[in-house]
């Protein structure tokens, strides 16, 4: 390395706007050389308090108001002030331009780390991964949040804050079952959204009213058994079903349900790609900063501080540790991406046997393909190598309540690799993490009661909160709601019911 080039980008640990600017330019240059494709980005410098605000609103710069965010805020504040937790160094928002927050308390090194991690790592993931591309509209999300906040604030003024709160509570309770898993949501901007909202209001109300028409039907003679089931097909998006079909809701209530649903949908890909996304960002901050170091642009002090934070983030405590709380997505993700690069660059015989298609290939191409086309579940299933399982010393425990003891099902050995990989991938399958509950039937002719059906997976029962969720559901639906479980053998039994003879009008 020539002596001439070894002038570091900046010295010292105090950050300045100019130093951040220079770091960003350098990191951006290296990222470009590696072919990372990112949204434009914007760095925002905030205080610790603002960071806690951002936490409470799941990182979004604008959000509607709700007590539960206040609860998160108090929780964070309390723990932070008592020193039980540090704040995350960064929050990054999947929007175009992508916004990354830098906290003012951080040192210059940490700011550079955050820029590499968030503004280039996460950013390129948001732009490239198919789930984000398909499910979220980075260019419209801020507009939509502004629309949502204003709309909900208006509703609070018009219909009273208690009524809105009750509604949002109910929506939040159902939010994990309010996402479409297979259909794509359309792109919309703020103006379009406002315009469409008006039309939708009128149209939807007309639809619903028709469904519950009380006028005598022309074809009253049609036999009872010919009455089609409603819904025709079971519906797994509970909030969607309620929004479109709940008989007693006012138009503004439908709109709020829609807002909660849309925002939930926006966050869904994040839940599905945690390991990949965090691993990707860690890999890139590690790689970008190391490249800069090799070019002589970073000081040794910088590297030591950086590596210390980096190591803390990607540390995986063993199951015996008192710090252990499951597999650290940062650690697993980072290790997976590093391992893929290793398989591409220096494959051994085992790799050639397990990964014949990528062993020895160009790692940048392989990375690009993997980043774009997978989610956690499939990513682990595809790329978790035997070597990595040995490194992590993974083992799988079977907990069957029909057996008196836990059983070790597979460990990191020749017989266990495939089983281990399968069960780890399954662990990241949101489809089986959330209970499978669908709208099964509505008694159109009788008491208008709504029946949900829970399809039991691996005999897992529903938790004790079920009845409270059902209560929320009943306030939305307005009539009796019940939930039944269908066991794998086909037997069905009712678990809970919330009777609601005739709900008082929502405006009261």
């Amino acid at each position, binding site marked *: 390395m020539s002596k001439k080039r070894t002038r570091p980008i900046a010295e010292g640990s105090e950050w300045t706007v100019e130093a951040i600017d220079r770091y960003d330019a350098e990191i951006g240059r290296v990222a470009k050389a590696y072919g990372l494709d990112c949204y434009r980005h914007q760095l925002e410098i905030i205080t610790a308090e603002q960071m806690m605000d951002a936490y409470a609103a799941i990182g979004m710069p604008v959000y509607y108001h*709700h007590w539960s965010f206040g609860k998160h805020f108090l929780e964070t*504040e309390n723990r932070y002030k008592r020193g039980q937790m540090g704040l995350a160094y960064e929050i990054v928002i999947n929007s175009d331009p992508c916004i990354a927050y830098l906290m003012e308390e951080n040192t210059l090194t940490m700011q550079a780390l955050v820029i590499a991690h968030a503004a280039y790592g996460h950013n390129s993931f948001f732009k490239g991964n198919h789930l984000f591309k398909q499910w979220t509209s980075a260019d419209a999300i801020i507009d939509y949040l502004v629309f949502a906040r204003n709309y909900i604030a208006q509703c609070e003024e018009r219909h009273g804050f208690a009524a809105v709160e009750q509604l949002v509570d109910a929506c939040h309770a159902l939010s994990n079952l309010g996402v479409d898993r297979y259909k794509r949501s359309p792109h919309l901007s703020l103006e379009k959204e406002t315009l469409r909202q008006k039309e939708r209001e009128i149209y939807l109300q007309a639809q619903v009213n028709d469904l519950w028409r009380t006028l005598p039907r022309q074809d009253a003679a049609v036999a009872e058994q010919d009455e089609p089931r409603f819904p025709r097909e079971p519906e797994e998006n509970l909030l969607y079903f309620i929004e479109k079909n709940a008989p007693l809701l006012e138009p503004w209530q439908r709109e709020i349900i829609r807002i909660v649903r849309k925002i939930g949908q926006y966050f869904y890909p994040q839940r599905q790609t945690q390991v990949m996304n965090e691993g990707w960002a860690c890999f890139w901050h590690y790689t970008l900063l190391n490249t800069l170091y090799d070019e002589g642009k970073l000081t040794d002090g910088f590297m030591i501080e950086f590596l210390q934070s980096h190591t803390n983030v990607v540390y995986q405590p063993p*199951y015996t540790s008192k710090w252990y709380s499951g597999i650290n997505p940062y650690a697993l993700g980072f290790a997976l991406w590093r391992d893929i690069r290793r398989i591409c660059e220096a494959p051994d015989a085992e790799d050639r046997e397990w990964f014949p298609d990528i062993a020895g290939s160009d790692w940048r191409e392989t990375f690009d393909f993997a980043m774009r086309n997978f989610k956690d579940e499939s990513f682990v299933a595809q790329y978790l190598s035997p070597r990595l399982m040995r490194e992590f010393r993974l083992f799988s425990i079977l907990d069957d309540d029909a057996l008196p003891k836990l059983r*070790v099902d597979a460990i990191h050995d020749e017989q266990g690799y495939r089983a281990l990989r399968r069960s780890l991938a399954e662990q990241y399958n949101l489809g089986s993490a959330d209970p499978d509950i669908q709208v099964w039937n509505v008694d159109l002719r009788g008491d208008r009661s709504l029946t949900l059906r829970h399809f039991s997976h691996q005999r897992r029962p529903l938790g004790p909160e079920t009845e409270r969720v059902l209560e929320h559901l009943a306030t939305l639906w307005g009539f009796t709601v019940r939930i039944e479980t269908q066991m794998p053998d086909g037997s069905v039994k009712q678990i809970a019911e919330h009777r609601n003879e005739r709900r008082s009008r929502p405006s009261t």
Partner: protein
Amino acid sequence: MTVRIVDRRQDSKNKSSINRSRFIQRFSGQIRKAVADAIARRGIRDIDSGEKIGIPGKDINEPHFRHGQGGVREIVHPGNDRFNTGDSVDRPLDGSGQGAGGASQDGEGMDDFVFTLTRDEFLDIFFDELALPNLVKRQLARIDEYKRVRAGYTQSGVPTNINLVRTMRGAAGRRIAVGAPFATRLRELRAELERLRRDCPGDPEILRIEREIASLNARSEAIPFIDPFDLRYSNRIRIAQPTTQAVMFCLMDVSGSMDESKKQIAKRFFMLLYLFLNRNYEHIEVVFIRHHTVAEEVDEENFFHSRETGGTIVSSALKLMHEIVVARYASTTWNIYCAQASDGDNWNDDSPLCRELLSASILPLVQYFAYIEVTDGEPQNLWLEYERLVDSHPGLFAMQRINEVADIYPVFRELFRKRLA
């Protein structure tokens, strides 16, 4: 191309404050209860802090459809140090500990949710919906105190208020502005004169120019050095200043019939009043007067804890209070509040005297007089006499009966309930 860096540190800090207050509003029931518990532990003047509050975690948990315990699950853990395929392991007792199958996250919500209320939030909750009767009217409408504050400059005023700096600055500006055309012309003429003298001395033009210069000089010197127009006076205005001090009289019967528990009840009541006043006034003094057949002024310790015996003459305390007010708290600068606690026992012929004292000399001086009777028996003669004051002094005099500790808070609220103006 450089990146866009936005410094947001000066932006609104408390984005979450709405959500925070929503949260407090939503769980006001639980929080109010926790606050009431906290009050019981505090001393009467000890209110200058927030309070750490815990409310049951399960109340604020947000429910979702989730899997419960049971069924079959397979979980992968890292760091294997002893297991082989097929090993059997005992279930850990509480779902956590070594080799645990998913230390359950559901357990987390069951602890108390602990957070810190700021002092203001703490008191807000405590005094929710409370206001002293006529408080707004008296504090804001009838203003006795004024303060003079600076308010910029005016063009008229008395000579003592002339602001020299402003005046001279204005004068200098005016002189420059008015003299500018002359100065420009002078510069031109001088240059011309210079040129003519050098190039063609003897030109009659020189004379003309010299004359013009002289006339311009005279005119520019005629610009007044200072003009009445330049004068600026420091301006002061009067702004109303609400009275910010209050004195609170605590009157308590310590005769033999007031036992320790009744005194404790009374203490809580005084405490509440003190807290409430502290919220409304910057400075508060507390006067403790206890009485049996004679009244005396004591300190807090003696007030609550020493015990006397004997009969009861309530009017003695009222007289003493009146004397103290006249001597130490002239009524225009002090807001006077009085809370009297008694078990209602009084010598029969003293009660009418009490009523007269109150209506003639005390009630005209005070902002509010609250009487609480700590008793579980029938109303006594003092109560009956006082009842006649309630109608003749609405909003100024209030009375309530308390049977046990739990009654205090509702009674307090009742006494100081916000009245519609």
